[in-house]
């Protein structure tokens, strides 16, 4: 098997393995080489876990040869955002002050992927501390600014799961695991033109993952297709007594017999105001496809303080998570100058304000659920723009105040969303559409996204 299959989906790679056209060790060696040569070009790589990868690949190979098939991820190399612990390797959190830290045990997600037969080939680049210190430009990681492999010029990979996004887009891993507190899966999915799934809060155990915001962090798959996202979620989701926020609900991805039509879609009102022209045009073209798959109507979210609640919760929990870093002065070792000071004010958020945000949050959840219960997915452009240039502050490229509240609403309420590419925009960069669903309806939004991709991919 040659390099030309590096951007195959998990399904395609699995077919090649089972047809004997490649082996887990051959696949792993290919991706390790590509990580080193291509992945580093995009600042996507922190650590290549070569020894572990080859060991896991040899085991996968022996098992498959013996007729023991663990499922669709068996023998598939993947990368993990470098906030997920992997025994024997550094887990840097993308931050210079933590660049040498190691943890003795694998994160739960890594354990589950090992049980599924997947092969960990790399710890992937990320914005330092998952963006919690308030970065406002791309150069905010110990590995340098994440770079999107798409488009003609250097553009930001998105964040904070920058390396996961660019690694999948560049075909240096079979799939990746990212995380999202507020945009960190969907942003790189948009900027790198890949499929990124943010599961319902509590769907995936966060044991062994860096915490930025205990009540808003979610781990999720970043892949080359929605179907691959479902396969990966199937492996990593489920109860875990080691994570008190992990739901007791079991999860299964029904790879076959998924709905392809009859969906009830809603378009977020006003979602194409204040977006780039190509973002709007591509979104409208997507709607023309989705109209063939079900009904479309416009919906508005209840007028509630989603952004304010999200900011207070994240800032207060972030301050607790990184109090020592900030009060000791180690925060001055972070890469982005603004990250060295922007988070400090969170140390003085009164408990009464934080608790008030949590009280308002419950009301937001109830009101949002009443809206989402009427639809299979609410649709919007994932981002109002394509990836910003590497040398531009985010607000200079597009003011954050103009963004819709859907991202804040969905993350405050812990709702699932899948962002998939839907065309090309400015500077040859991808645009994206996000399907946001009701709590626990990952399979519904995955079915819709998968059906959309089957209709639009040649």
């Amino acid at each position, binding site marked *: 098997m040659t390099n030309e299959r590096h951007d195959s989906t998990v399904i395609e790679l699995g077919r090649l393995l089972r047809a004997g056209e490649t082996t887990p060790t051959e696949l792993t060696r290919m991706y390790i080489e590509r990580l080193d040569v291509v992945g580093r070009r995009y600042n996507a790589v922190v650590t290549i876990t070569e020894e572990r990868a080859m060991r896991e690949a040899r085991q996968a190979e022996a098992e498959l040869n013996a007729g023991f098939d663990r499922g669709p991820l068996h023998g598939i190399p993947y990368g993990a955002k470098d906030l997920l612990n992997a025994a024997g390797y550094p887990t840097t959190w993308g931050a210079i002050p933590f660049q040498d830290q190691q943890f003795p045990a694998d994160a739960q997600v890594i354990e589950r992927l090992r049980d599924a037969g997947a092969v960990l080939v790399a710890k992937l680049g990320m914005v330092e501390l998952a963006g919690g210190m308030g970065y406002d430009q791309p150069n905010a990681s110990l590995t340098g600014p994440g770079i999107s492999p798409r488009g003609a010029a250097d553009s930001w990979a998105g964040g904070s799961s920058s390396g996961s996004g660019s690694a999948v887009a560049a075909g240096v891993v079979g799939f990746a695991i990212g995380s999202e507190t507020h945009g960190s899966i969907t942003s790189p999915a948009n900027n790198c033109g890949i499929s990124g799934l943010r599961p319902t809060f509590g769907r995936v155990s966060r044991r062994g993952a860096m915490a930025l915001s205990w009540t808003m962090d979610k781990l999720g798959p970043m892949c080359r297709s929605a179907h691959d996202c479902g396969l990966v979620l199937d492996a990593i989701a489920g109860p875990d007594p080691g994570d008190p926020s992990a739901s007791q609900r079991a999860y299964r991805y029904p790879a076959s017999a998924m709905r392809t039509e009859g969906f009830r879609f809603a378009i977020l009102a006003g979602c194409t105001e204040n977006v780039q022209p190509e973002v709007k045009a591509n979104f409208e073209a997507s709607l023309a496809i989705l109209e063939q798959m079900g009904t479309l109507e416009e919906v508005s979210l209840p*007028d509630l*303080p989603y952004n304010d609640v999200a900011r*207070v919760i994240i800032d207060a929990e972030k301050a607790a998570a990184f109090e020592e870093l900030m009060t*000791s002065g180690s925060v001055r070792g972070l890469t982005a100058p603004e990250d060295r000071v*922007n988070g*400090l004010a969170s140390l*003085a*958020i009164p408990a009464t*304000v934080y608790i*008030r945000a949590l009280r308002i949050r419950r009301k937001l959840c109830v009101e949002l659920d009443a809206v989402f219960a009427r639809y299979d997915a609410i649709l919007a452009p994932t981002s109002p723009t394509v990836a910003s240039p590497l040398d531009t502050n985010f607000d200079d490229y597009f003011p954050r105040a103009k963004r819709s509240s859907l991202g804040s609403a969905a993350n405050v309420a812990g709702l699932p969303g899948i962002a998939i590419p839907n065309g090309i925009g400015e500077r040859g960069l991808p645009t994206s559409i996000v399907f946001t669903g009701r709590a626990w309806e990952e399979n519904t939004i995955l079915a819709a996204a998968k059906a959309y991709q089957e209709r639009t991919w040649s």
Partner: protein
Amino acid sequence: MSDHETPPEPAADRIDAGVAAVVAELSYDLDDAGRAAVRERVIGHLKLGDALRAFPLENADEPDFIFRVYRAEG
């Protein structure tokens, strides 16, 4: 208060108290630029707090805590 309404600028003594509270937590000195950044963010947080205080709540409106009681098995 929705996401689209901006509370008024907080009173100066509240801002100063917020900045002082942050500085008191640090084991190192901030330079002028650092203090200015902290001040700007303290103002932002005070506005957030004021915006959330404007949202009507009753005593019965409980927060969503993760806390659950624990009891060892056996």
